[in-house]
C-alpha cells in the first residue's frame, strides 16, 4: 500500500468537513474520488498533503506515518499536488514556476535531467513554452491550469494528487491531459484523482470512491461504478451516456 | 444598530461619569488626549479597516487642523470655531489633492505616498518660520468656548472632547451601517470586482480619505486649543505610525477597536513612564505579544459584544 488513510477527520475553522474517512491507494494504482461540490474532496486531499493540519486519524505513505508532517516534508517524500484553484506563482515567470516545481530535485539530480523533464512538460503543453517568459498571473485561465499540472509533473512524484485538473480546459486539451495521465500511470506513477468530469475520471482510473458530505459512501472498480445507476444519475451527464453507449 | 446602542450607552455613560468619580485633573487630562486620539482613529479605521487603504500620513492632517486653527485664532484673532472650520476646509482640500493621484497606488506604495505627504507637512511646519513659528513652535492659543462657556479647565474640555467623540462615533457607525459603509467594505477586494458591480471605487476611495482627514483635522484643532502651544515635534511620522498601531492593536475595522486601541496606547506610556530606559523594551514586547496572541486586536478578547463589521 502506497497511501493509507485511516479514520481521518479534518476540520476547517474547527468545523469537521471530512469525517472519519478510511481508504488506500496501492502502488502503481490509479484511483478516483468523485463527489458533489462541498463533499469535502479538496479538504481530504489537502489534509493528506499537510496543508490542513487540524485533523485526527492517520495518514501513512510508503508505510510511514506522515499525519503530523509539514507539507514541505511530505512533498519531499514524493507526493505532488495539482491544487484546486491553480495556486500558481503569479508574479514569477512561467519558466520559474516550472523550475520551482522541481525544487526538491535540485541538488539530488543533475540539471540535465531536470531540463529533460522541463522539455517533456513543454512537449505536453507547447503554449507554455511560447509563454515561457510571461508572468504566470497574466496567463489565461486554461493556461494557468496547464501550468499547475506541468509544475506538479516537474517534481516527478511517486504519488500524484490531482484536484480537478481539467477545470477550465478546452475539450481538446482536456482529452490530451487525460491521455497523458494515462501514460504517466502506465510508466508507474500512482494517481489519486479528484474530478468533476466523471466520465474521464472513471475511464482512466482503476478504482473509485464516491464521497458525500464528508464521508466515503461507495467504493469499487471504476468500470463498475460507471454502471451504477445512482452514480449515472448524479454525476454523469447525458453526454456521457451517449458516449458510453456508443 | 440596536446592539451597538446598548454598548454605546454603557461605555459613554461610564466615560461621562468618570470626572465626577475621579476628580484628578491628571487623569482627566490623559482622558482628553484619549478622546482626541480616538477621534482620529475613528476616522482612520474607516479608511484602513474598512476601505482597506493604508495611510501613514494622518499626522499631517492632524497638524493642518491644529496649526490652521491655532494660527488663525492666535495671529488673526478669529473666533475658534472659524479656525476649526478653516482647518477642516484646508484638510479636505489637501486630502483631495493627495487622494486623487493616490487612487492608482496600493499597499506599500500608498503607504509611502501618504508618509511622504505627512513628512512634507512636517517640513513645511519647520521651514515656514514666519507663519508657523518654525521648530520653536508658538503658544498662547486662546481657549475654546462653547455656548458662552469657556473651556479652560480640564474638566470642561473633557466633556467637550468626549461629546465630540460620541458624535463622531455615531457618525462612523451610521456610515458603516448604510449603503456607503457596504461600498467602502467592498474596496477590500480586488478593485475590478466592485468596479464590475457598478461601485464607483474612485469616489469611495477619495471619500474614505476625506473622511479620515476630516476627523484628524478636527482632532487637531481640539488638540491646539487644549495644549495652547504647538510645535512640529508633535506631528511626526512617529505619530502617524502610532495612530496605525492604535487601530491595529485595538482591532482593525472595528469602531470599538479604534477607541480601545487609542485608549491603550495613550495610557501605556503613562504607566510605563517610570520605567524609563526599559520603557521601550516593554512597549516593544507588548506590541509583539499582542500581534502574536491577538492578531485581530484587543477587541477579539470579547467576541459577541463587539459588532460592526466582521
Amino acid at each position, binding site marked *: 500500500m502506497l497511501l493509507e488513510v485511516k479514520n481521518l477527520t479534518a476540520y476547517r475553522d474547527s468545523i469537521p468537513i471530512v469525517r472519519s474517512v478510511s481508504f488506500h491507494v496501492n502502488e502503481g494504482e490509479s484511483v478516483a474520488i468523485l463527489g458533489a461540490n462541498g463533499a469535502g474532496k479538496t479538504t481530504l486531499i489537502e489534509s493528506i498533503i499537510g496543508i490542513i493540519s487540524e485533523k485526527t486519524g492517520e495518514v501513512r505513505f510508503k508505510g510511514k506515518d506522515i499525519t503530523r508532517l509539514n507539507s514541505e516534508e511530505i512533498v519531499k517524500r514524493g507526493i505532488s499536488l495539482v491544487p484546486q484553484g491553480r495556486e500558481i506563482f503569479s508574479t514569477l515567470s512561467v519558466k520559474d514556476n516550472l523550475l520551482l516545481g522541481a525544487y526538491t530535485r535540485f541538488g539530488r539530480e543533475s540539471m540535465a535531467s531536470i531540463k529533460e523533464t522541463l522539455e517533456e512538460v513543454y512537449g505536453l503543453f507547447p503554449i507554455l513554452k511560447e509563454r515561457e517568459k510571461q508572468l504566470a498571473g497574466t496567463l489565461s485561465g486554461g493556461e494557468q491550469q496547464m501550468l499547475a499540472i506541468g509544475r506538479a509533473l516537474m517534481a516527478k512524484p511517486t504519488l500524484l494528487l490531482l484536484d480537478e485538473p481539467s477545470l477550465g480546459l478546452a475539450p481538446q486539451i482536456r482529452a490530451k491531459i487525460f491521455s497523458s495521465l494515462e501514460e504517466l500511470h502506465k510508466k508507474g506513477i500512482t494517481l489519486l484523482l479528484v474530478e468533476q468530469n466523471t466520465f474521464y475520471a472513471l475511464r482512466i482510473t482503476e478504482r473509485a470512491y464516491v464521497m458525500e458530505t464528508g464521508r466515503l459512501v461507495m467504493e469499487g472498480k471504476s468500470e463498475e461504478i460507471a454502471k451504477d445507476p445512482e452514480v449515472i444519475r448524479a454525476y454523469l451527464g447525458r453526454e456521457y451516456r451517449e458516449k458510453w453507449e456508443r | 444598530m440596536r446592539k451597538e446602542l446598548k454598548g454605546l450607552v454603557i461605555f459613554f455613560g461610564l466615560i461621562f461619569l468618570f470626572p465626577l468619580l475621579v476628580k484628578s485633573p491628571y487623569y482627566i487630562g490623559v482622558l482628553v488626549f484619549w478622546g482626541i486620539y480616538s477621534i482620529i482613529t475613528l476616522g482612520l479605521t474607516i479608511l484602513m479597516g474598512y476601505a482597506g487603504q493604508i495611510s501613514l500620513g494622518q499626522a499631517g492632517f492632524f497638524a493642518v487642523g491644529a496649526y490652521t486653527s491655532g494660527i488663525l485664532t492666535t495671529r488673526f484673532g478669529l473666533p475658534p470655531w472659524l479656525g476649526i472650520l478653516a482647518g477642516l476646509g484646508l484638510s479636505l482640500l489637501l486630502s483631495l489633492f493627495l487622494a486623487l493621484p493616490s487612487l492608482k497606488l496600493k499597499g506599500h506604495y500608498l503607504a509611502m505616498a501618504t508618509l511622504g505627504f505627512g513628512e512634507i507637512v512636517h517640513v513645511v511646519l519647520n521651514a515656514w518660520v514666519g507663519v508657523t513659528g518654525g521648530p520653536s*513652535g508658538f503658544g498662547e492659543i486662546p481657549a475654546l468656548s462653547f455656548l458662552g462657556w469657556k473651556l479652560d479647565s480640564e474638566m470642561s474640555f473633557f466633556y467637550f472632547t468626549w461629546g465630540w467623540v460620541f458624535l463622531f462615533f455615531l457618525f462612523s457607525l451610521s456610515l458603516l451601517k448604510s449603503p456607503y459603509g457596504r461600498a467602502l467594505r467592498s474596496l477590500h477586494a480586488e478593485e475590478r470586482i466592485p468596479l464590475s458591480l457598478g461601485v464607483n471605487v474612485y469616489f469611495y476611495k477619495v471619500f474614505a480619505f476625506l473622511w479620515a482627514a476630516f476627523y484628524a483635522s478636527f482632532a487637531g484643532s481640539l488638540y491646539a486649543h487644549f495644549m495652547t502651544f504647538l*510645535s512640529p515635534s*508633535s506631528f511626526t511620522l512617529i505619530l502617524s505610525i502610532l495612530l496605525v498601531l492604535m487601530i491595529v492593536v485595538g482591532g482593525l475595522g472595528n469602531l470599538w477597536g479604534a477607541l480601545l486601541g487609542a485608549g491603550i496606547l495613550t495610557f501605556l506610556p503613562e504607566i510605563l513612564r517610570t520605567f524609563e530606559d526599559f520603557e521601550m523594551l516593554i512597549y516593544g514586547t507588548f506590541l509583539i505579544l499582542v500581534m502574536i496572541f491577538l492578531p485581530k486586536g484587543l477587541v477579539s478578547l470579547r467576541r459577541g459584544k463587539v459588532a460592526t463589521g466582521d
Partner: protein
Amino acid sequence: LIFGAEYRIGAVFAVTGPASWLGDPEKKTVEMLEEEINSQGGINGIPIRVIVEDTKGDETQTVNAVRKLITRDRVLAIIGPSRSGTTLAVIPIVEKYKVPLVSCAAAEAIVKPVKKWVFKTPQTDRFAVEKIYQYMKKKGIKRIGIITGTTGFGAQGRKHLLALAPKYGIEIVADETYAPQDTDMTPQLLRIKAKNPQAIVNWSIVPGQAIVPRNMKELGMNIPLFQSHGFGNIKYVKAAGEAAEGIIFPAGRLLVADLLPDTHPQKKVLMEYKRKYESRYQEPVSTFGGHAYDAFWLIVNALKAVGPDRAKIRDYIENTKNFVGTGGIFNFSPEDHNGLDIEAFEMLTVKNGKFTLLGD
C-alpha cells in the same frame, strides 16, 4: 516613610527620545543631589523626594507628566523640562496651578515676557550669540555664513543670529539649514562657500555639530567655525575627530573649571559638581547636567528658607541674588527670571582634543 513626611519635587526631563542627550545628564544630576541631601538628613530633618518623569521630548507626554506631578504627586516645584518646546507647552499648566517651575531649556521665550511662575537656569541663547558676535567684532569678522539645524534649539539660535547681527555690524551672507537626520551637509556648505564669508556659525545639536566640521574639512574650507554652547560636551569633540580642532564656541565655565583661576567665584562649585558627577557616573560632566544642578539648588535653597509652600518658594527664587551656580552667578528679579547675563559665558576652543579658554 509616611505620607507628608517628605518634600516632593518634580522633575521632567527628556530622558529618552531625540533630546535624551539633554535629559540624561539632567536626570543623573538630580538623582545624585537627592541622594546627597537625604544622606545628610534631608531639609530640616525631612527627606526630599525628586520624582523624575520621562517626557521623551514630546509635548503631549510632558503636559501629562506635569499635570500628574502637580495634581497627583502634589510636588512643591518642578525642575525642567529639558527642551524649550516642552517648556513652552507646560507653562499654561504651571501658571494655572501656581507651581514654580525652573526650566532647563535655553530659549529666551521662556522667560521673556516674564511669566510669574516660570524660571530658567541655562544662559539665554541670545547671550551666547552676543558673546560670539562680540568676539567676531573684536577680530574684525564682518561677513559670516550661518548653518542651523531644524530643531527647536537650532531655530532659536538662528533667530538670534539673524536678529543680532546688525547690532554688531555683521552681515550674514548665507543662511542655511539642515534636518536632524541628515548625514552630509556638503551642499549647504558649498552654498556658504560660494558667498565667501569670513567665518561660519553652526547652531545645532549632535550629530550636526560633528558632521559640519568634518564636511568643512573635506571641502578644504579653512575659515573659522563657531558653534553653539550646545557643543559643551567633550564627547562631541571626539565625534568630530580632528576636524574639531580650532572650533570656537561660548560656554559656561563648567567645562573649563580646572583652568579657572582659584580666585574665580564659581571655581569651587564647578569643581565640586564635576568631581562628584564624574566619579559617580564615570562619564564627563556636561553643561546640561549643570542646568539641572542649578535648578535643583535654587529650589532646595528656597525650600530650606521658606518651607513647603509653593508661593513662598516662588517668591524666594524671584528674589535670589548672587547665587553661585554652574551656569554663572544668578541674580533674579521680578523682571528677570533667568538671572544671568552675558558674563556667564566664556569663549572656548578645542586644542589637542581638549577644551581650553580662548585667549584674545
